[in-house]
């Protein structure tokens, strides 16, 4: 078993271990969860240190790193084929990091800890799996496996409307992913393996236009398959009309799960589009790019506007995710180096920032037991450290220079402007509105007269700091010097652009 498999399946191992620990032994359960996710993080970090920046990945197996390639179901040409490149590795690393932090964030889960942690570890494995899979079938399996633990994690440990939120999340994403299933099967039957001549689930073979036959030779076939895939991914992103599961799921989910949802799950949609839709159907990607850009702009503005109207802090953050994912969509719709790198960097950066935001909301919720923005006020007096970190995170979300979000957004703008001028200008309005809702929220929560109810509210504690500070450092570090990540991405993404007509 290679490093990558180890990193991916470590959490699953932890889950199996936990299943054998008696229900009462909560601390042992937690420690197993912590250790396995930590080991996974250590492994991915080690892999980063070993990462070869000169390989571009995307559509050549030799260009991927940490590849493991075995036959799984030989009769159906399903393979256990994993590997990383510049597109996936940042996400892999991010998911291992956030899994670890989320375990810390879930330390005080009130009930059914055994179930919680085992489901969480399953979730962690499936997330990593999605990002490392290079076999479409494997990808799909991981993609769907994610739904089950997510459903329970929201549904059992969530807020008051958890059942509704959980089933909504489940149904939406399932509806999307079954379309993907169809598209996947259609690809399978319309792609030949150049070596064996049979059909294949190997993504890399699908990327090679020479291997396409039948349906994939026709424009209509390609177009509708692209749409099916797109809807599958779009629901996850979530793209504008499909986004309504997100606020509900985020608001009802426990803190750690919101972190994972916003930090990793949303990225899977755009990741899938770039990883799968673009290389398989580059012409259609180009053909529909304007629509994607328009949707991106709608996401940006719509998310921001609706965020401004929210009264619930977590909902505000949730809608801000809608808005921020719009930048990813805009960036990837333009096929310029700056645009697509910006988009993927925004995925990475939003993963860090939004994780911070949800953790912060969680911190305050743990203390005040509500999230009404207007119910707070003047918290800067009673919780100075918390306020400091929160301002950092919120400024990062607002796209302030010095933080990763700024670089990503700027790159998206720079990339998009030459292609879609008017759209970019409209999208840039988003920066004003974002500043508006974030500052307004900051003012209502932290500034002004201290609400006497919260005079003696405790400031942030060490455990909470320990999960926020690494993220804060990351967002500042990569905000000042993004090249370690960008170097990785640019090889792959610039290469990807050459595949798009």
């Amino acid at each position, binding site marked *: 078993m290679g490093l990558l498999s180890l990193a991916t399946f470590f959490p699953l191992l932890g889950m199996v271990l936990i299943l054998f620990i008696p229900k009462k032994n909560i601390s042992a359960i937690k420690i197993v969860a912590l250790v396995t996710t930590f080991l996974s993080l250590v492994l991915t970090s080690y892999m980063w240190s070993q990462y070869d920046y000169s390989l571009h990945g995307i559509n050549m197996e030799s260009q991927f790193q940490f590849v493991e390639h075995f036959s799984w*179901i030989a009769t159906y040409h399903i393979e256990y084929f994993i590997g990383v490149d510049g597109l996936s590795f940042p996400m892999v690393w991010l998911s291992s990091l956030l899994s670890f932090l989320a375990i810390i964030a879930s330390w005080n889960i009130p*009930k059914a800890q055994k179930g919680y942690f085992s489901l969480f570890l399953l979730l962690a494995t499936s997330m990593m799996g999605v990002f490392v899979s290079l076999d479409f079938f494997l990808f799909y*399996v991981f993609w*769907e496996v994610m*739904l089950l633990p997510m459903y329970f994690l929201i549904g059992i440990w969530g807020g008051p409307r958890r059942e509704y939120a959980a089933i909504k999340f*489940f*149904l939406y994403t399932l509806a999307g992913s079954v379309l993907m299933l*169809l598209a996947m*099967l259609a690809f399978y039957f319309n792609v030949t393996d150049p070596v064996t001549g049979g059909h294949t689930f190997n993504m890399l073979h699908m990327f090679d236009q020479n291997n396409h036959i039948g349906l994939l030779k026709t424009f209509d076939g390609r177009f509708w398959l692209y749409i099916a895939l797109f809807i599958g991914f779009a629901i996850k992103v979530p793209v504008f009309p499909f986004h309504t599961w997100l606020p509900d799921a985020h608001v009802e989910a426990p803190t750690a799960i919101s972190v994972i949802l916003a930090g990793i799950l949303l990225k899977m949609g755009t990741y899938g589009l770039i990883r799968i839709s673009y290389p398989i159907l580059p012409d259609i990607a180009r053909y529909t790019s304007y629509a994607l850009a328009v949707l991106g702009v709608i996401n940006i503005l719509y998310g921001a506007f609706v965020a401004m109207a929210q009264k619930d802090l977590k909902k505000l953050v949730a809608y801000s995710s809608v808005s921020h994912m719009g930048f990813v969509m805009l960036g990837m719709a333009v096929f310029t180096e700056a645009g697509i790198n910006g988009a993927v960097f925004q995925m990475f950066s939003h993963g860090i920032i939004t994780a911070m935001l949800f953790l912060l909301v969680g911190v305050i919720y743990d203390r005040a037991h509500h999230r009404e923005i207007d119910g707070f006020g003047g918290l800067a007096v009673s919780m100075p450290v918390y306020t400091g970190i929160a301002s950092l995170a919120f400024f990062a979300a607002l796209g302030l220079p010095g933080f990763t979000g700024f670089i990503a957004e700027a790159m998206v703008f720079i990339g998009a402007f030459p292609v879609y001028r008017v759209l970019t200008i409209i999208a840039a309005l988003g920066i004003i509105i974002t500043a508006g809702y974030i500052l307004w929220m900051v003012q209502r929560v932290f500034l002004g007269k201290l609400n006497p109810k919260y005079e003696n509210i405790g400031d942030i504690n060490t455990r909470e700091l320990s999960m926020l500070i690494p993220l804060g450092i990351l967002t500042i570090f990569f905000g000042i010097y993004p090249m370690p990540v960008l170097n990785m991405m640019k090889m792959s993404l610039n290469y990807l652009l050459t595949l798009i007509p």
Partner: protein
Amino acid sequence: MSNLNSIQYFIPELFLTAAILALIIVDLFLKRKQKSIIAYLSAAASLVAGFLAYQQFSLPATSIFQGMLVLDSFAIFFKILAAFSTVIVVFISLDKFRETAEYFILLLIVTLGMFIMPAVNDILMIIIAMEIVGLISYVLAGIHKTDLKSTEAALKYMIYGAVSTGIMAFGFSLIYGLTGHTNLYDIQMTLASGHVNSVAMFIAFMMVLAGLGYKIAMVPFHFWVPDVYEGAPTPVTAFLSVGPKAAGFALFIRFLVTIVAHPSSGAADTFVQNVDIQAPFLIAVLAVLTMTLGNFSALNQKNIKRMLGYSAIAHVGYMVMALVVFNKDAFGAIMFYMIVYLFMNFGAFWILESLSSKLGGEDIEHYKGLGYRDSFTAVSMAVFMFSLTGLPPLAGFIGKVYLFAAVIKQGWLILALLGVLNSVVSLFYYVSVVKAMFLKQDDELAPIQTSLYHKIMVLILVVPTLVLGVYWSPVIEFTTNSIGLFFGR
């Protein structure tokens, strides 16, 4: 092949018949307390029969008993499946029918019917085989003589079955009239020669479909399903939803690929229709109707058994969907799905059966908070539910993948689309059970103690559901081989 020579190919059935007779005799000597011996013996008998059938797997395909039956691996596959489902049903029923020896004997007779059904090669044999399964099933459905629901189910089943069989028989008589043969191959030859009126053939085909459709619970012949499934004792329902249905599918497939279509050349993957009727499109429409109706009707059910009844219709829809393409992939997919469906469906029914007395009923309501009362069972139930929905990494998903793959391969994308959308709908009701078990915590209810027997049974059913979702190569190879010989005759 002459009758005498055929006997060597008929050993499993002969064994079963002998076992039935032996059990009837043994039953006479048993005291009431000892009646459960019959159960074990019947399980053993069907197990042995299944094993004997498996022994025949490598035999070349032959037609036996003067063309009344054929012996090919396709038939053997379904025989094994039938034997296996009987074994499981015996264990599911063990508690409830401990003292009712007749039940197990009847079960074995149905098993015999199910052994014959996939192998038939003559109109008469079709009718007889279906009647064996049918008639005895009526009795099984009504075996709770004092239960109003059970007897009502039996009567409804009986009336519906009798009429359907009657219509089917009439359809067969027309086919006989159209071709002058009762042997399926002869019919095929005549049809393929192309002198048969397609309109008349189509109407006859539809009449036959009434009987076959009733057996597999396809719209619009599904009406009996919810009532009978709800009314019949749970083990019987479980049995009806798997065993006879699988045999029905085998029969349906054989009917389609001999009477409606024939292999285009030798052992080819593709089939040419014998008569110019719009069978694929018709089947597609019926499949969509079947799954949609099944799913949508299941949505608001409060009784899990009835819900599973409706959902069984939906699953038939998925399987019928694959039939539109008339090829190896489709039949392989259906066979694979049958295996998967056997595990997950029996699993769900077993939990339903073994917990109904402890929980006080079979409504979703009763399952509230089960996850906190008996987490092992609840998790297993969740696994079955999700597998039935078709989520990876569970067996149901793989099953569906094959079904959808079969139709997508031939370009029936819209059909597949409707299929997958249906499985999204199905999530809603399957998950409602899960929701009740896990999302509704009720601290007042005490934990449930379940027997070791219960746990082992669950384990036996849940492990394949999980494992087949991750590694299914041997099974798919088995099914593919089974088809290979079917066409290689």
